[in-house]
């Protein structure tokens, strides 16, 4: 391996002189070849990501019959979709679910990050335990939640009865099913927010705190006026990832309620699955995917914009 010193001098030469006298630097040629490294990945991405995308666009204009041909029907799938009340309800429900499943984990996650930023005994082990819900196989955990929600024999209603709260219907009642599913989401994804914000906290400078403490600021002031603004870009990343994931939530709802009772927990993704792989309306489902994707991209871009702004202002 070449030692560091020739590298330094050569780079020095290159940086100073626009036309090196002895040997022309070919670095820019190399830099153009770096894309070759990405070729296998690009092929893979074209095959399993881009191609399905284009195919979905094409299919969304087709009346697709499983096992027998298809016919071009233009915008019809989209037109039907926007008059499909069940779909429109699913959209509203998804937004409601997403709002809750973003705000609650982010608030809790920031609090958790501030706590885990402190030094205390067993911090590593406790952090491992705290991150277990987000790593555990969602289906396995969802099955256990289902058993815990059992109205008569479930452990949750028993625990509530210990503190004098009457038994809840959890996922078995249309009015409580969304909050209950959000509760699982909070349990599962608060750790991700915590890890992201913790990463932000670790990179904070110390000086503002020292001078603020000298000026007599208390802990809340420090958090509100120094920590939060500095860590805000990380919080926005968490908000963005959480939004994307909450919009797409599938495993928990599918395993626990399949969208029920009735359609009370049927989000866009569940509706999409039913259309595609229960009713095999693949053309219709493709139009739905396109609309779904546009919603996600628009929301992500809005959040990205908000994040850039917060970065400029910080």
């Amino acid at each position, binding site marked *: 391996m070449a030692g560091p010193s020739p590298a330094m001098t050569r780079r020095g030469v290159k940086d100073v002189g626009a036309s090196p006298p002895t040997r022309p630097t070919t670095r820019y040629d190399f830099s153009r070849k770096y894309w070759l490294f990405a070729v296998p990945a690009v092929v893979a991405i074209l095959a399993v990501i881009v191609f399905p995308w284009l195919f979905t666009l094409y299919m969304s204009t087709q009346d697709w019959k499983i096992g027998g041909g298809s016919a071009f029907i233009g915008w019809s799938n989209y037109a039907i979709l926007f008059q499909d009340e069940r779909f429109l309800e699913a959209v509203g429900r998804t937004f409601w679910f997403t709002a809750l499943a973003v705000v609650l984990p982010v608030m809790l996650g920031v609090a958790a990050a501030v706590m885990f930023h402190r030094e205390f005994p067993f911090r590593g082990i406790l952090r491992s335990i705290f991150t277990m819900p987000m790593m*555990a196989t969602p289906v396995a955990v969802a099955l256990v939640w289902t058993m815990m929600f059992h109205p008569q024999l479930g452990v949750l209603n028993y625990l509530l009865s210990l503190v004098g709260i009457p038994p809840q219907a959890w996922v078995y009642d249309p009015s409580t099913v969304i909050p209950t599913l959000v509760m699982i989401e909070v349990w599962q994804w608060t750790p991700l927010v915590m890890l992201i914000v913790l990463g932000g906290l670790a990179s904070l400078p110390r000086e503002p705190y020292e001078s603020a403490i000298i000026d007599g600021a208390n802990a809340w002031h420090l958090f509100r006026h120094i920590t939060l603004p500095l860590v805000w870009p990380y919080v926005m990343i968490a908000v963005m990832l959480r939004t994307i994931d909450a919009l797409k939530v599938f495993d928990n709802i599918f395993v626990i309620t399949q969208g029920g009772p009735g359609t009370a927990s049927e989000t866009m993704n569940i509706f999409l699955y039913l259309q595609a792989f229960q009713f095999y309306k693949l053309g219709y489902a493709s139009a739905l995917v396109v609309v779904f994707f546009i919603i996600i991209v628009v929301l992500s871009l809005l959040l990205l914009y908000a994040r850039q702004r917060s970065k400029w202002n910080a």
Partner: protein
Amino acid sequence: MMRAPKLRRIAGNAGFALSLFVLVSPAILVFLWMLSLSLKNDADNTAFPPIFIPDPPTLDNFRDVFAKNNFLLYFWNSILVTGGAVLVGLLVGVPAGYGIARAKSAKFAFLILIARITPALSYLIPLFLVFQLIGLNGTITALLVTHLVITVPIIVWVMIGYFENVPMELEDAALVDGASPWQGFRHIALPLARPGIIVGAILSFIFSWNNFIFSVVLGGKTTRTLPSAIYNVLTFEQISWGPLAAAALLVTLPVLLLTVVAQRQIVAGLSAGGLKDG
């Protein structure tokens, strides 16, 4: 004079410990309840008020899982699909991460981001039709290829972050001394980015292992991976809680062990490499 601040600090620490307890205990309690269910017989599992500590604990539920189901087959399917997808993901994704980091190509990075945003079902509909067309539906190969949707973006994303932190000077020196970009990658950047490879492999393993929907749609009766097998087979064939909890525990155990053993790498991957700058 000394008393008041000291007392306040003790009270503050107690409050901190209490809120930490409230924060962390739900995380562990669900898993402990899973363990408790899996170690009790049926009568104890449906007792009310619930019995928390199995007395005496029994392994019958675990025996049941292996005896009455093809659990080992599903386990093997999961190993094949996830292992294969992680391996191919590394072969393809590590060089790509290097190329993108060195070429500073925002376009590729953006493509990866789009992959993160897209709902899984939008890959599934076209891939389902294509696999049907070429007769691959319900095969391990189809599942493995589809799982690349998970592993490749994660690995590329993590590797971009790590390669950007490998100083360019060393490679520059080698290039000027006549090495090819491939040699620069193979002998200089790659060894230095080894921690990143481990992080990418762990994260993509976990997310591929946990994936449910691909196997629900594309898996056949004998090619299902564990998450969809436990949902399809066990849920409908056995209504009893003990074996179901035992199976759920077995499915998620490899991932939980990884979480505890590789905590440092996972944190690094998710907070730094996986999400890039602030």
